[in-house]
């Protein structure tokens, strides 16, 4: 069997890559996708632990995470559409109206 360790390490790698993308990409949509990547990494960790512990709670939680991610994606993309319509740009650095 594959040791749980490996799954967790993979999850960590994916998470780190997600954070990296979150910081270094400029397109709003790409940033959003990196959030999904991070969520997926965490899901992987959950399922891995669920399997290691023999309980199903982890998998149930994963289901809930997926549901929430779906809802969040829907609303978030709606907002992105509005931003793109208003600011005529998808570069996140151009959206800086909150600057002090």
């Amino acid at each position: 069997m594959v040791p749980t360790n490996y799954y967790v390490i993979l999850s960590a790698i994916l998470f780190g890559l997600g954070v990296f993308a979150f910081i270094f990409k400029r397109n709003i949509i790409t940033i959003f996708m990196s959030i999904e990547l991070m969520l997926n990494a965490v899901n992987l960790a959950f399922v891995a632990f669920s399997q290691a512990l023999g309980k199903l709670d982890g998998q149930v939680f994963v289901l809930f995470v997926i549901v929430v991610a779906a809802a969040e994606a829907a609303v978030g993309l709606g907002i992105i559409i509005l931003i793109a319509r208003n600011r005529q740009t998808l570069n996140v650095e151009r959206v800086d109206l909150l600057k002090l």
Partner: protein
Amino acid sequence: MTASLVVFFVLAALAVIGAVSLILQKHPIHSALSLIVVMVALAGLYLLMGAEFVAAVQIIVYGGAIMVLFVFVIMLLNAGVEEHTSISKMAGAPGLLLVVALAGFVAATIARSAESVQTASQSGVMSSTKDISNMIFKDFVYPFELTSFLILVAILGATVLAQREKN
């Protein structure tokens, strides 16, 4: 080297390559496709762990609904190659440092507790859909209802947000 290990490594490599590709691509549509690859790989890993229901849901919801949503939005907005601006001072060198630090911490945490996470349990306990649904509808019925409410709100929100302005 057992079969499952080999499968694991293949799928893991696929996932990592997909993630790296997401970072390196310039056009967002290519990043979206890379993400789909990652999700499929992860579904495969779930299957490997015996969580079929989760794997199925992953493909259907994540891959089939959410990513399709992403692709549609990219199409709607006519997203192109992103321009290269570097207005943010924090996101340059400090950001890199912090990501490395984060990764390091996580690695250290894992390493520290490596002993207690060694063995995988037997595959005796197969997670069946019936068991999962039992859990959802008995132990977690309250969060379940809340999530349905959440989805309703999300639908309404998305509808409102995407309306054209009334001229």
